[in-house]
């Protein structure tokens, strides 16, 4: 890996000549072009729009920091950030605990392990929109299995998704169902790639299962755990599809997560400028969070 660049370039026939000099760049160019046109340009455009009053059918007008000032006092936006945060922490946390438990449960070889592992990851390959449909069918007060079970147990008819207090937990449950398999898959792969010697040594010394888990498995697994939590947290923080299909943010604003709120303000109320400023704020939060996590675990991971 650390071999000096020159001999390799020479062996590969890169010495001299315009072809040799330009080839590495020519290979990267198409990707850079795509990134510039469809990521960097839109991002700059977003930033520009966030300083404008921009509604459909009207020419955009520059308004400086007005959108951002509005943002700071917008209780709906603050509320949606709070909802998103609760959703992210609860879902990611539960998925981690359940995924780890499943991984520990299934880490040893056993009969039918292939088919069982494949079955367990079915939810994560199903489109989030379809996951929404599945849970609409379960939660529905008239036809839902979930509601039927609740009614049989408590005698009360329950429409979970139209309850201000239960709608958010219901959405969190859906996310847990869909993404625990992801945690399971990542952590299982992590556990299986750990070296065996420390565990054997600990067992010879007579350490109990719980101690081995706490003082060996968890610390050695830390890099995988950090990556898994980060990926899931970032995705949960920008959740949209299942919420769109199941509640559209309702009842009221009980489940209005940030991405949904921005979508509504831009594409339902065509306030492109204000929507862009909220999107930029979200981007800054996400970058700040990722940078903080990466920095905290750098060197250890």
């Amino acid at each position, binding site marked *: 890996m*650390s071999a000096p660049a020159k001999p390799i370039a020479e062996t590969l026939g890169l010495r001299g000549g315009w072809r040799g000099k330009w080839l590495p760049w020519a290979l990267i160019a198409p990707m850079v072009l795509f990134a510039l046109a469809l990521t960097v340009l839109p991002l700059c455009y977003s930033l520009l729009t966030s300083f404008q009053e921009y509604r459909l059918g009207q020419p955009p007008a520059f308004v400086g920091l007005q959108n951002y000032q509005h943002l700071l006092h917008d209780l709906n936006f603050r509320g949606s950030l709070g909802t998103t945060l609760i959703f992210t922490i609860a879902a990611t946390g539960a998925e981690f605990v359940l995924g780890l438990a499943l991984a520990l449960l299934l880490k040893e070889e056993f009969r039918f392990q292939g088919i069982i592992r494949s079955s367990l990851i079915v939810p994560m390959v199903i*489109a989030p929109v379809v996951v929404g*449909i599945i849970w609409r069918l379960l939660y529905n007060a008239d036809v839902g299995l979930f509601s039927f079970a609740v009614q049989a147990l408590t005698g009360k008819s329950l429409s979970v998704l139209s309850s201000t207090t239960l709608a958010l937990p219901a959405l969190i449950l859906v996310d847990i169902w869909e993404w625990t398999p992801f945690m399971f898959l990542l952590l299982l792969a992590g556990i299986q790639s750990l070296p065996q010697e420390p565990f054997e040594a600990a067992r010879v010394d007579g350490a109990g299962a719980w101690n081995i888990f706490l003082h060996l498995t968890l610390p050695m697994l830390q890099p995988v755990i950090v990556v898994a939590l980060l990926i899931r947290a970032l995705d949960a923080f*920008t959740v949209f599809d299942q919420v769109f299909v199941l509640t559209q943010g309702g009842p009221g604003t009980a489940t209005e997560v940030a991405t949904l709120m921005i979508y509504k303000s831009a594409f339902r109320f065509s306030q492109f400028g204000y929507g862009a400023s909220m999107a930029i704020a979200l981007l800054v939060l996400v970058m700040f969070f990722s940078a903080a996590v990466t920095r905290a675990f750098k060197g250890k991971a």
Partner: protein
Amino acid sequence: MPRLSSAVRRRLWFLTRLSLIVVALIVTLLPVYWMVNTSFKNQVEVFTSPPTFWPQNPTMDNYVSLFVRRHLGSYLLNSLIIVGSAVVLSLAIGSLAAYSLARFVKGQLRESLNFWVLAPRMIPPVALVVPLFLILQHLGLINKQLGLILVYTAFNLPFVAWMMRSFFLEIPMDLEEAAMVDGATRLRSFRDIVLPLAAPGLVATSIFALIITFNEFFFALILTSTPAAATLPVGTAALIGKTQTLYGEMAAAGVVAAVPLVIFALLVQRHLVRGLTMGAVK
């Protein structure tokens, strides 16, 4: 409490483990089964209480109606065209870039490039979607297959390049050098030596790209709207509004949208872990 013999303890642990696994399987699969079950029921049976665990008069009406009246065939075709094109494009472009990054970039630059390749993946989609909508509208690419193909290609590129780079790095340089010492051109050594060795990487990467793109909803919802270009998730979500209480049809649409990928995932099971974890775990 009397001390249990180790054989009994092992037995107990085995039974606990078994029952926990069974519970996990039921919780995972029952919701999916319920959708399949509902999709074969007629409108009367859907509303029967208590619900039936097996369709009493199984019917294909829901599926027929979807394809005859709800354009599901068009949505499916759009999905196949858009996803196929975007995956092939991003794999071709991303692999070239990845090869260059793996072979020609060294030292300090390599570390920082590592970050910049993957950074776009961290951007919340919602931060890009407003300007993308305005740009594509300007170009006349709203509700066009091409518009979504371009957006998905750009969206896939960061992790395709990132994953393929890690696969290329695993291929020893000596092999290529040996071939070239023997007189092969760089192009030939790439085609005959690097590509075959990178094949598992290409498979894992396309699996990931395919699942992500096929299931993508947010961009598709905003950039396409009619059966002319809308993908399966968008068409399925649109059905929910239109069918109101036709839960059988809704379930059938869900089955159509889910089945291709579930079967695909089972087929490629062996490559799935590395694919789904973006190459982070072997």
